[in-house]
């Protein structure tokens, strides 16, 4: 995804749809209230893009329903009019999941922000999709509970958006992603029917369709209620910050810590450029070294003391230059602020940058970072790395100057090459930002056409009309009437052990 500091880039993609007829707009206005139905060009402009700001398209109408019933009414109206539907939370997504289809009905869920139920004994919470991620933990924090998934955008992103993207965050290494903390969802389907999938009572007979809806990037329906798993806060958290001569030593430290049997709550790595950027943005007093690790262990206090001591020892053995332990909660918070603001901070050291989101087996971190550095040299571009080292989820930021179209083109190409490196090492094209509009073209490099056909069958089971977010995630749109042909293996596959990439 592309981030811009002010100043237009050249390859900006903007699509305009036909304006919708007035009588139709009036019907939408009647469904949600005129104050929450936008159709004037200057109103629509706000919704032209999400966090992937270089892709823009104008919706036909924006509606902000306040209830499941109003969502149903909007879905039915859109269906009657034959218009595609795109759902949107806060629009912080980095892959264009909430990018409008030109002329679509954009359903914003930001008004549905009620916390409906909190049940500590049964460890769940029922919320509307527009509730902000951080507000969930704030709501239950005073009682000593929290909600685990913590994307860096957690102070603005919504639970509904998290569900759509199966959002992760720094602490998902130990605690898992949104899908591991979503017990159930209420979904409005393409025909306006409402279904409850999963729920507070575990394992009710039936397929795990809630598990399929989480991470489906808005292609299966509109989620209007979510049952979240909540957790009792751990007794203790220990944080340390360690600096290294290069990412190689830091990568080795991560491997050694994990190999010692510790499951850290989070281990984040930053390279020199990312450190410089974080310093410029937040005023942390970090030395400008080759690499830094920020690590949390949490749990029972005595266990934390033990694991943090072991981890510090491992970091030192791997070649740490310095290990810092925060003196108090405020200092710890500042360290994490430095890390979490790193993407935006890179805007201070480069005019434009592309954020990549690839995954590799964590044992390959040092090797892959060297390969990426090699790519940077070949393309003549700087790369900042700030990422979730514990689970091998890389976020290389390719820096460029958007005023130079050739440099921008090279940056795009190089960013794609980084994904190919991840795939060559057995990884993934996205660890948490999603496929969306940004990476649909890369799906065939990770999945065979049979894999994609199978996923399309699931999509057709939910949404045979292709109403929701068409054109996202899958490289080649297919109508649900099309029968995917029976797969015939290539002779080379039959002969060897090899399987399709």
């Amino acid at each position, binding site marked *: 995804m592309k981030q811009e500091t002010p100043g237009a880039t050249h390859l900006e993609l903007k699509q305009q749809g036909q304006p919708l007829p007035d009588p139709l707009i009036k019907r939408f206005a009647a469904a949600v209230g005129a104050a929450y139905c936008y159709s004037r060009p200057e109103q629509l402009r706000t919704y032209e893009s999400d966090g992937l700001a270089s892709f823009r398209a104008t919706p036909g109408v924006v509606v902000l329903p306040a209830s499941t019933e109003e969502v149903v009414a909007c879905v039915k109206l859109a269906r009657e009019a034959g218009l595609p539907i795109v759902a949107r939370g806060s629009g912080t997504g980095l892959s264009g999941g909430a990018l409008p289809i030109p002329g679509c009905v954009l359903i914003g869920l930001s008004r549905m922000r009620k916390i409906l139920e909190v049940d500590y*004994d*049964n*460890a769940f919470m029922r919320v509307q999709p527009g509730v902000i991620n951080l507000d969930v933990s704030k709501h239950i924090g005073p009682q000593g509970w929290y909600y685990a998934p913590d994307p860096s955008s957690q102070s603005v992103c919504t639970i509904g958006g998290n569900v759509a993207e199966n959002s*992760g965050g720094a602490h*998902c290494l130990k605690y898992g*992603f949104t*899908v591991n903390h979503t017990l159930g969802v209420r979904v409005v389907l393409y025909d306006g029917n409402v*279904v409850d*999938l999963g729920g*507070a*009572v*575990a*394992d*009710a*007979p*039936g*397929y*795990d*369709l809630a*598990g*399929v809806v989480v*991470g*489906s990037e808005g292609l299966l329906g509109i989620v209007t209620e979510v049952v979240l798993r909540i957790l*009792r806060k751990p007794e203790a958290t220990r944080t340390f910050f360690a600096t290294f001569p290069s990412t190689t030593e830091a990568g080795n430290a991560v491997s050694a810590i*994990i*190999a010692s*049997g*510790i*499951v850290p709550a989070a281990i984040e790595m930053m390279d020199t450029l990312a450190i410089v950027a974080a310093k410029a943005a937040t005023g942390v007093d970090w030395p400008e070294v080759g690499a830094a690790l920020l690590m949390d262990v949490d749990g*029972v206090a*005595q266990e934390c003391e033990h*694991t943090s001591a072991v981890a510090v020892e491992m970091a030192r053995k791997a070649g740490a230059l310095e290990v810092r332990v925060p003196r108090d909660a405020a200092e710890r918070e500042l360290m994490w602020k430095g890390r979490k603001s790193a993407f935006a901070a890179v805007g201070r050291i480069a005019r434009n940058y592309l954020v990549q989101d690839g995954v590799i*087996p*964590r*044992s390959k971190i040092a090797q892959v970072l060297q390969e990426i550095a090699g790519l940077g040299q070949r393309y003549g571009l700087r790369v900042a790395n700030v990422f979730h080292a514990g689970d*091998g989820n890389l976020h290389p930021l390719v820096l460029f100057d958007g005023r130079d179209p050739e440099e921008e083109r090279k940056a795009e190409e190089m960013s794609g090459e980084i994904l190919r490196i991840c795939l060559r090492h*057995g990884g*993934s094209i*996205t660890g*948490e930002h*999603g*496929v969306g509009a940004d990476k649909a073209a890369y*799906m065939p490099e990770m*999945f*065979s056409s049979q*894999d*994609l*056909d*199978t*996923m399309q*069958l*699931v*999509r*057709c*089971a939910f949404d045979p009309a292709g109403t929701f977010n068409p054109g996202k*995630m899958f490289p080649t749109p297919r109508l649900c009437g099309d029968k995917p042909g*029976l*797969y015939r*293996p290539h002779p080379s596959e*039959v002969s060897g052990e090899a399987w399709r990439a």
Partner: protein
Amino acid sequence: MARVTPGSIEEAQALLAEGGRRVLFVGGGTALPPGPPVDLEISSEKLDRVIEYEPADQVVMVECGMRLATLQRELAKHGQRLALDPPQPDKATLGGIVAANSFGPLRTRFGSVRDLIIGVSVVRADGTRAKGGGKVVKTVAGFDLPKLMCGSWGTLAFIATVTFRVHPLPEEAVTLCARGGDPLELVRRVRAQQLEPAAMLAISQAKGWDVYLRFEGFAAGVRAQRDKLRDLEESAWPDPAPAGARVRFGALPTHAAQVAKALAPLGARLEWLPTLGLGFASRATVDPAALQGARRELAALGGWLAADGDWGPAPGSLGLQRSVKQRLDPAGVLAPGRFLV
């Protein structure tokens, strides 16, 4: 009815591609629900290899017919384990465990199959081989086919290979038992004291429950937690229920007492995971009338009960469930009559 034991996934694929036959996939047979006759049984017995295991990445990919106990021995050589402990690990296969969403008390800490599976490859009813997820612990590319396979009871596709996240073996473990304890009270106490048991299991007794807790991890943490529950005696982990009819049920954790009352007429040994609200009732035979009565009472509490391929009333999402089945197995040949869909 023919039973075939393919020696490779390609052979299984070829068998399905022939089409026109009702098929049942058979693993260890520990959880296979009864149902109408089929034309072909495909056994996973010979598909029992570890395909890839990289201890440093804590990821293992296996063929579906591998027995859980065999895998655990392999992982233990590197100080690791799959944090899943369903019954009969010597028999249960990993493909079957995924298909049946099997679990044991470790689910308390580590979650169920869906929380540990990261990738899957399947053969669809028409012989098409497809995969979802990946080989890294974190990926959000594409729909989550691995989760769709969890608890699908062989009705959507043949689960050919499975990739799991694995965990380090704990350095130390201790089991405590609260005899005649109240599961809910103990859960509250554990949370108030911020303890983190790896497993909690309540077993019904003539009067009330015996509640077991197991702490696992580094010695320092295990001992500290043990010391905070000084009034509880150390104990061996309870024996698994003898094989026989196994009824599964679920309800809110706070309904433990009502659940015990509802299931009392079964005269079965009850196992209850008190943090999760899931349980098993085990007995040689179960009286159908008592079962229906118990189900009605659980349903009134918002819970459910399933026994031997009898899944109870259809959920509100049945139409959507059927639509998924219809798309993936349009001729309805996979495990017919074995699941509610």
